């Protein structure tokens, strides 16, 4: 099959330049990786703007860009819910309310918090399930990248998977979390620079927003208006969107997924740590500009996407086809590099999360305890290697699932939704006990799995797969919440002294930053207000 896009020398020069920079950054950080804290946590030394942009970029991986453009072509403007409802509130909540416990307790990982707050069993359950989930996600990023190279260059799937895996392996092996973070910040700028030309050219060709209004069917143009009706593009009612996506899935991901939380833990002080997700929230609100607009443009401009197209249209190819449609060689290379960057950040984020959880929460807790720091540093490096190897294997599993985005939501909701309930109770209710946490989490996960099985067997009915996913998350969360409280009421309470620094009410409140402009609460509130206004503007 002929490649969709033909690249020439300048495009390859741009791509190569970026790969070189990624490796050079890793190389220059090599000599600073002296301790485990350096390798896994960047020595807790990074400023807020770096951790903030990395926090966002770690999330802005393959799925975000390609999947969201595809979703925009499929669902229209309602896709913004993934950002304005599905991300901003959670990010702000994490920064203002949860970071004091995460960063203040000096835990190295999310499971470690669970061990301190609940018990070893809870930690084990989370660590093992997260480790599995993160390699699945890594495989997804890798596969998506390989698919792009196949379409773009006609490269073999295997070749691309191995190429991407080797590059990420090199720079993470050398520079650990710092490499991953620094490269993510570079990627942040590249993603915007690479994809914005399509936005400008697309808007120019369709005649701006007026063009959208004139030529697209109404349900595609509203984010809220049609959610309650039978014309609902998302197939999910408002309850599902608000509670399933907006609350459970969104908070479950942003507040407990170690991949993003790890970047905040690398901050140099508590204020930077709290500002990290809040700093990330502002550009996050703008991401719809580079994903939703192109999705809508694709519907109007690409022959493959005319509105009378068959339902089996490959929405995932929207972005690549737009690049071919508009971009001459030169900026085309830049756009491809931007996508490459977003794939790499997704994969590297998963790899660093994996090597940390493996080393501290699985290996260091169950296999070989009490070894000196240098031993764990070495294990971290080994874990990087086999983590990448497992991801490569996982990339082949992902081939069976047609819609990458729905797959991700499904996996998240099995684990992340219940975990959020566990954290919520853990951080804000001192009465939650160790076994309460464990059984709550266990039953939450089982509920999610059970719900999925019932749905697939046809015992439960929903308007769409996405609706099923959102409700599955909601029920899993609720089960965890109720079971944790229930079991906690009947099991032994923790000593209050042990819980200092881990729970609201037993932790001294940090003094608010003197400068008004440095306060997380101020910026967090501003972010929420802006997101609310945007929702109203595009309702």
């Amino acid at each position, binding site marked *: 099959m002929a490649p969709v896009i033909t690249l020439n020398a*300048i495009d390859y*020069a*741009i791509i190569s*330049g*970026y790969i070189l*920079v990624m490796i*050079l*950054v890793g190389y*220059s*950080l090599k000599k*600073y*990786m*002296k*301790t485990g*804290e*350096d390798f896994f946590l*960047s*020595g*807790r*030394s*990074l400023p807020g703007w*770096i951790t903030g942009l990395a926090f966002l970029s770690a999330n802005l991986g393959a799925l975000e860009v390609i999947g969201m453009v595809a979703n925009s072509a499929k669902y229209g403007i309602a896709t913004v819910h993934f950002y304005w409802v599905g991300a901003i509130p959670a990010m702000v909540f994490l920064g203002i309310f949860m970071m004091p416990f995460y960063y203040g307790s000096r835990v190295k990982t999310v499971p470690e918090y669970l061990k301190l707050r609940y018990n070893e069993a809870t930690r084990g359950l989370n660590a093992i399930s997260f480790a599995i989930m993160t390699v699945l996600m890594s495989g997804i990023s890798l596969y998506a990248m390989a698919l792009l190279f196949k379409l773009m260059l006609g490269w073999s799937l295997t070749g691309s998977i191995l190429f991407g895996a080797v590059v990420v392996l090199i720079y993470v092996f050398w520079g650990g979390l*710092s490499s991953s973070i*620094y490269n993510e*910040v*570079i990627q942040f*700028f590249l993603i915007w*620079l690479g994809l914005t*030309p399509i936005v400008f*050219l697309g808007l*120019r*060709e369709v005649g701006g927003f007026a063009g959208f209004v004139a030529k697209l069917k109404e349900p595609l143009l509203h984010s809220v208006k049609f959610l309650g009706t039978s014309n609902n593009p998302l197939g999910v009612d408002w309850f599902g969107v608000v509670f399933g996506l907006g609350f459970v899935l969104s908070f479950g991901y942003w507040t407990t997924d170690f991949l993003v939380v790890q970047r905040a833990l690398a901050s140099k002080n508590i204020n930077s740590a709290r500002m990290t997700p809040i700093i990330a929230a502002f550009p996050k609100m703008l991401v719809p500009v580079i994903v939703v607009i192109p999705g809508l443009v694709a519907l109007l401009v690409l022959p493959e996407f005319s509105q009378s197209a068959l339902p089996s249209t490959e929405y995932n190819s929207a972005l690549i086809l737009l690049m071919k*449609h*508009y*971009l*001459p*060689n*030169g*900026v085309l290379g*830049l756009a491809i590099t931007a996508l490459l960057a977003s794939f790499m950040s997704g994969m590297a984020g998963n790899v660093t999360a994996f090597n940390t959880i493996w080393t501290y929460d699985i290996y260091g807790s169950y296999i070989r305890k009490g070894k000196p720091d240098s031993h764990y540093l070495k294990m971290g490096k080994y874990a990087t290697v086999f983590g990448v190897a497992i991801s490569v294997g996982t990339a082949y599993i992902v081939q069976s699932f047609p819609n990458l985005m729905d797959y991700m939501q499904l996996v998240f909701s099995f684990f992340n939704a219940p975990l959020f309930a566990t954290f919520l109770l853990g951080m804000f209710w001192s009465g939650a006990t160790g076994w309460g946490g464990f059984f709550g989490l266990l039953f939450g996960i089982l509920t999610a799995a059970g719900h999925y099985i019932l749905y697939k067997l046809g015992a439960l009915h929903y308007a769409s797969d996405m609706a099923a996913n959102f409700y599955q998350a909601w029920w899993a969360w609720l089960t965890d919440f109720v079971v944790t409280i229930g079991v906690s009421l009947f099991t032994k309470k923790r000593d209050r002294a042990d819980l200092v620094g881990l729970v609201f009410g037993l932790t001294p409140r940090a003094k608010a930053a003197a400068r008004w402009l440095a306060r997380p609460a101020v910026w967090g509130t501003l972010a929420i207000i802006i997101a609310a206004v945007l929702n109203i503007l595009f309702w």
Partner: protein
Amino acid sequence: MDAKIKATEQETGMKQGHVLDLKLPIGWLLSIYGLGLGVYGLVTGKEIYEKSLGVNVNLIWGILMLAVGAGFLLTAFLKRGAKG
């Protein structure tokens, strides 16, 4: 004395500071990209810009990127100057 030396050994690594001013790689990368795209935009003919609605994206975007890149490098060097 020994304890003090041990302490500093543990401290080295990322906490040293001056690790790598991120504005430098970003600045250089964007500036070089900008320069490359800009020059490419100047030497290429009108035909390849038919698909981009007649707009010479390479030239325009090249200049923009060069400006952004230069901005980063400027802030990085000014900061160094102030410190030194």
